[in-house]
């Protein structure tokens, strides 16, 4: 299915990068403000879905650069791996471990395995959604 609309295409040209940026933003603040992997994954998917409707799924796939099914696998794998450090630390699987990443005086952020887990969720949700949408678009 293809919608040939100049308005939509023009709109998407500006909206697409904005939505992607928004999804990254919403992902990063997810631990402390509304947001997180699920939501960010959905917003990013919406961005690509819009893009594919305005042009077509082949172009959208090219922009994405990664096979959507691979994205599911990578996401699940990252989520799984984020649970492993805890095992080596003698805790039970998926226990959160935290540390600091800092350049003294410049910035200091907390980083921990749950962030990694959330990245896995983000990628998996995005992979699933886009796999479904692209596949639906591509049926003849």
């Amino acid at each position, binding site marked *: 299915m293809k919608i040939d609309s100049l308005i939509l295409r023009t709109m998407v040209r500006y909206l697409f990068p904005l939505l992607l940026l928004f999804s990254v933003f919403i992902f990063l603040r997810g631990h402390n403000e509304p947001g997180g992997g699920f939501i960010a994954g*959905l917003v990013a998917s919406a961005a690509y879905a819009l893009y594919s409707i305005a042009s077509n799924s082949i172009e959208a796939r090219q922009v994405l650069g990664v096979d959507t099914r691979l994205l599911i696998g990578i996401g699940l794998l990252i989520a799984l791996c984020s649970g492993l450090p805890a095992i080596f630390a003698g805790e039970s699987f998926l226990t959160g471990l935290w540390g600091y990443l800092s350049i003294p005086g410049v910035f200091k952020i907390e980083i921990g395995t749950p962030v990694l887990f959330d990245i896995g969720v983000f990628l998996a949700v995005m992979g699933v959604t886009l796999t479904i949408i692209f596949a639906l678009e591509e049926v003849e």
Partner: protein
Amino acid sequence: MEIVLAFVIGGLYAAGIYMMLRRSLVKLLIGLALLSHAANLLIFTAARLTRAGFPIIGMDQQALELPYADPLPQALILTAIVISFGVTAFALALSYRTYKSIHTDDLDKMKTTDEADDSKETSA
């Protein structure tokens, strides 16, 4: 507000179930989606409504201030929303595949498709 929402939930359930009982496959799909709205709202309402604060600890605070909305049902519903999206997508794909294979969306005509399919395969 609880009473109002109780009726909204009842209405959503009734609409969803009515659509799921139709013979047309496409209507069933709409019914399925309505039903998941109903279920999510049911959990949300049953776990108490409050207009008080979000379950988010302010940047300048060390603990959540009372009163706050219960975060646990929210986490449950969040996963439920995403899962029902997956279910809906799967149902849509399944319906598409079914329609392409047997060229009808009348559920009453799908009763014996297993057998018909088998005989076709063995005769081929």
